[in-house]
Protein backbone atom coordinates (compact mmCIF):
# COMPACT_ATOMS: atom_id res chain seq x y z
CA UNK A 1 0.00 0.00 0.00
CA UNK A 2 1.36 3.44 -0.92
CA UNK A 3 2.03 6.20 1.62
CA UNK A 4 -0.88 8.05 0.14
CA UNK A 5 -3.29 5.13 0.52
CA UNK A 6 -2.12 4.54 4.10
CA UNK A 7 -2.77 8.20 4.92
CA UNK A 8 -6.19 7.97 3.26
CA UNK A 9 -7.28 4.90 5.27
CA UNK A 10 -5.88 6.32 8.49
CA UNK A 11 -7.62 9.66 8.12
CA UNK A 12 -10.89 8.18 6.92
CA UNK A 13 -10.96 5.91 9.98
CA UNK A 14 -10.16 8.72 12.43
CA UNK A 15 -12.71 11.13 10.97
CA UNK A 16 -15.42 8.45 10.77
CA UNK A 17 -14.91 7.42 14.42
CA UNK A 18 -14.96 11.03 15.54
CA UNK A 19 -18.12 11.88 13.59
CA UNK A 20 -19.88 8.76 14.88
CA UNK A 21 -18.91 9.32 18.51
CA UNK A 22 -20.03 12.93 18.36
CA UNK A 23 -23.00 12.19 16.10
CA UNK A 24 -21.94 15.25 14.15
CA UNK A 25 -22.44 14.02 10.61
CA UNK A 26 -21.32 11.69 7.83
CA UNK A 27 -17.84 11.07 6.48
CA UNK A 28 -17.67 9.75 2.91
CA UNK A 29 -14.73 8.56 0.81
CA UNK A 30 -14.27 9.58 -2.83
CA UNK A 31 -17.83 10.61 -3.55
CA UNK A 32 -18.96 12.77 -6.46
CA UNK A 33 -19.82 16.27 -5.30
CA UNK A 34 -22.04 18.00 -7.83
CA UNK A 35 -23.06 21.63 -7.46
CA UNK A 36 -25.22 22.50 -10.42
CA UNK A 37 -25.42 26.24 -9.95
CA UNK A 38 -21.63 26.52 -9.67
CA UNK A 39 -20.92 24.19 -12.64
CA UNK A 40 -18.74 21.88 -10.60
CA UNK A 41 -18.36 18.12 -10.31
CA UNK A 42 -15.42 16.94 -8.23
CA UNK A 43 -14.42 13.79 -6.36
CA UNK A 44 -12.52 14.78 -3.23
CA UNK A 45 -10.68 12.08 -1.26
CA UNK A 46 -12.85 12.59 1.82
CA UNK A 47 -15.87 14.76 2.53
CA UNK A 48 -17.79 15.46 5.69
CA UNK A 49 -21.41 16.61 5.79
CA UNK A 50 -22.95 17.87 9.02
CA UNK A 51 -26.00 16.01 10.30
CA UNK A 52 -28.22 19.06 9.76
CA UNK A 53 -27.32 19.05 6.04
CA UNK A 54 -27.56 15.30 5.47
CA UNK A 55 -30.30 15.88 2.87
CA UNK A 56 -27.64 16.78 0.31
CA UNK A 57 -26.33 13.19 0.45
CA UNK A 58 -27.98 11.25 -2.35
CA UNK A 59 -27.63 7.70 -3.59
CA UNK A 60 -24.39 8.06 -5.54
CA UNK A 61 -23.43 11.70 -5.07
CA UNK A 62 -23.58 14.77 -2.90
CA UNK A 63 -25.75 17.48 -4.40
CA UNK A 64 -24.64 20.56 -2.52
CA UNK A 65 -21.75 21.98 -0.57
CA UNK A 66 -20.10 19.65 1.96
CA UNK A 67 -18.80 21.07 5.26
CA UNK A 68 -15.29 19.70 4.93
CA UNK A 69 -13.23 18.55 1.97
CA UNK A 70 -10.00 16.62 2.48
CA UNK A 71 -7.55 16.06 -0.38
CA UNK A 72 -4.41 13.94 -0.16
CA UNK A 73 -1.25 14.80 -2.09
CA UNK A 74 -0.21 12.23 -4.69
CA UNK A 75 3.01 13.85 -5.98
CA UNK A 76 4.57 17.35 -6.20
CA UNK A 77 2.57 18.47 -9.27
CA UNK A 78 -0.58 17.20 -7.62
CA UNK A 79 0.35 19.26 -4.53
CA UNK A 80 0.37 22.39 -6.72
CA UNK A 81 -3.07 21.51 -8.08
CA UNK A 82 -4.50 20.98 -4.58
CA UNK A 83 -3.10 24.23 -3.24
CA UNK A 84 -3.96 26.15 -6.41
CA UNK A 85 -6.98 25.55 -8.56
CA UNK A 86 -8.71 23.15 -6.17
CA UNK A 87 -8.28 25.37 -3.15
CA UNK A 88 -9.61 28.37 -5.09
CA UNK A 89 -12.54 26.31 -6.32
CA UNK A 90 -13.52 25.09 -2.85
CA UNK A 91 -13.31 28.66 -1.56
CA UNK A 92 -15.59 29.75 -4.40
CA UNK A 93 -18.14 27.03 -3.49
CA UNK A 94 -17.89 28.24 0.10
CA UNK A 95 -16.81 24.90 1.53
CA UNK A 96 -16.30 25.94 5.19
CA UNK A 97 -13.17 23.82 5.74
CA UNK A 98 -10.51 22.39 3.46
CA UNK A 99 -7.66 20.13 4.55
CA UNK A 100 -4.70 19.07 2.47
CA UNK A 101 -2.82 16.02 3.65
CA UNK A 102 0.76 15.55 2.52
CA UNK A 103 2.00 12.04 3.33
CA UNK A 104 5.46 12.88 1.99
CA UNK A 105 5.96 15.89 4.23
CA UNK A 106 3.83 14.28 6.98
CA UNK A 107 1.64 17.37 7.28
CA UNK A 108 -2.05 18.10 7.52
CA UNK A 109 -2.86 21.68 6.57
CA UNK A 110 -6.24 22.94 7.71
CA UNK A 111 -7.92 25.95 6.14
CA UNK A 112 -11.03 27.69 7.40
CA UNK A 113 -13.09 29.93 5.16
CA UNK A 114 -13.02 33.54 6.27
CA UNK A 115 -14.69 36.25 4.18
CA UNK A 116 -14.43 34.20 1.00
CA UNK A 117 -10.79 33.12 1.39
CA UNK A 118 -9.09 30.29 3.23
CA UNK A 119 -6.95 31.01 6.26
CA UNK A 120 -4.66 28.33 7.58
CA UNK A 121 -5.40 27.29 11.15
CA UNK A 122 -4.40 24.70 13.71
CA UNK A 123 -7.93 24.42 15.01
CA UNK A 124 -10.63 22.77 12.98
CA UNK A 125 -14.11 24.03 13.77
CA UNK A 126 -15.64 20.70 12.76
CA UNK A 127 -13.17 18.30 14.40
CA UNK A 128 -11.84 20.58 17.16
CA UNK A 129 -10.09 18.08 19.43
CA UNK A 130 -9.14 15.46 16.87
CA UNK A 131 -5.40 14.83 16.89
CA UNK A 132 -4.47 13.69 13.41
CA UNK A 133 -1.22 11.76 13.21
CA UNK A 134 -0.24 10.34 9.87
CA UNK A 135 1.22 6.81 9.73
CA UNK A 136 5.01 6.55 9.44
CA UNK A 137 6.32 5.68 6.00
Amino acid at each position, binding site marked *: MSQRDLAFVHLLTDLTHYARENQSGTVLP*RTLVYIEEK*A*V*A*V*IPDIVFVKRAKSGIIQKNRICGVPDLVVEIV*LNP*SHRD*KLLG*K*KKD*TYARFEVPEYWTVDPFEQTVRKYVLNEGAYQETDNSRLFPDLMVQLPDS
Partner: protein
Amino acid sequence: MEMIPKAGPQKIPFQVFENSIPNEGKWEWIDGELLFSDEEMRKVILMLVSQIGLKKWIDILPHESRDELERLLRDKS
Protein backbone atom coordinates in the same frame (compact mmCIF):
# COMPACT_ATOMS: atom_id res chain seq x y z
CA MET B 1 7.26 5.09 -23.07
CA GLU B 2 4.53 6.74 -25.09
CA MET B 3 1.98 5.56 -27.63
CA ILE B 4 2.12 6.71 -31.24
CA PRO B 5 -1.35 6.47 -32.77
CA LYS B 6 -1.39 4.44 -35.99
CA ALA B 7 -4.12 3.82 -38.57
CA GLY B 8 -5.21 0.63 -36.83
CA PRO B 9 -5.87 -0.22 -33.18
CA GLN B 10 -2.99 -1.08 -30.85
CA LYS B 11 -2.72 -2.83 -27.53
CA ILE B 12 -1.75 -0.66 -24.58
CA PRO B 13 1.21 -1.86 -22.49
CA PHE B 14 0.58 -1.74 -18.74
CA GLN B 15 3.33 0.85 -18.23
CA VAL B 16 1.61 3.23 -20.64
CA PHE B 17 -1.77 2.56 -19.06
CA GLU B 18 -0.38 3.27 -15.59
CA ASN B 19 1.34 6.47 -16.69
CA SER B 20 -1.53 7.78 -18.77
CA ILE B 21 -4.38 7.66 -16.28
CA PRO B 22 -5.02 11.30 -15.46
CA ASN B 23 -5.77 12.65 -12.01
CA GLU B 24 -5.78 9.15 -10.43
CA GLY B 25 -8.62 8.13 -12.71
CA LYS B 26 -10.88 10.81 -11.27
CA TRP B 27 -12.68 12.83 -13.93
CA GLU B 28 -13.47 16.18 -12.38
CA TRP B 29 -15.20 19.13 -14.02
CA ILE B 30 -15.01 22.80 -13.09
CA ASP B 31 -16.63 25.59 -15.11
CA GLY B 32 -16.98 23.38 -18.17
CA GLU B 33 -13.35 22.21 -18.08
CA LEU B 34 -11.90 18.86 -17.14
CA LEU B 35 -9.48 19.20 -14.28
CA PHE B 36 -6.52 17.65 -16.10
CA SER B 37 -3.22 19.35 -16.78
CA ASP B 38 -2.18 19.75 -20.44
CA GLU B 39 0.29 16.90 -19.96
CA GLU B 40 -2.36 14.60 -18.46
CA MET B 41 -4.73 15.46 -21.32
CA ARG B 42 -2.03 14.76 -23.93
CA LYS B 43 -1.18 11.36 -22.46
CA VAL B 44 -4.76 10.16 -22.13
CA ILE B 45 -5.69 11.30 -25.65
CA LEU B 46 -2.65 9.55 -27.16
CA MET B 47 -3.53 6.37 -25.28
CA LEU B 48 -7.21 6.42 -26.29
CA VAL B 49 -6.54 7.23 -29.95
CA SER B 50 -3.83 4.55 -30.10
CA GLN B 51 -6.23 2.00 -28.67
CA ILE B 52 -8.95 2.58 -31.28
CA GLY B 53 -6.65 3.66 -34.14
CA LEU B 54 -6.78 6.79 -36.27
CA LYS B 55 -9.18 5.24 -38.78
CA LYS B 56 -11.84 4.54 -36.18
CA TRP B 57 -11.21 7.88 -34.54
CA ILE B 58 -11.93 9.62 -37.87
CA ASP B 59 -15.05 7.46 -38.30
CA ILE B 60 -16.26 8.58 -34.88
CA LEU B 61 -15.85 12.26 -35.68
CA PRO B 62 -18.95 14.11 -36.87
CA HIS B 63 -18.78 15.29 -40.52
CA GLU B 64 -18.34 18.87 -39.46
CA SER B 65 -15.30 17.94 -37.36
CA ARG B 66 -13.80 15.85 -40.17
CA ASP B 67 -14.08 18.84 -42.54
CA GLU B 68 -12.45 21.01 -39.91
CA LEU B 69 -9.68 18.46 -39.42
CA GLU B 70 -9.02 18.26 -43.15
CA ARG B 71 -8.80 22.03 -43.31
CA LEU B 72 -6.40 22.17 -40.36
CA LEU B 73 -4.17 19.48 -41.88
CA ARG B 74 -4.14 21.29 -45.22
CA ASP B 75 -3.22 24.57 -43.53
CA LYS B 76 -0.42 22.89 -41.63
CA SER B 77 1.22 21.29 -44.66
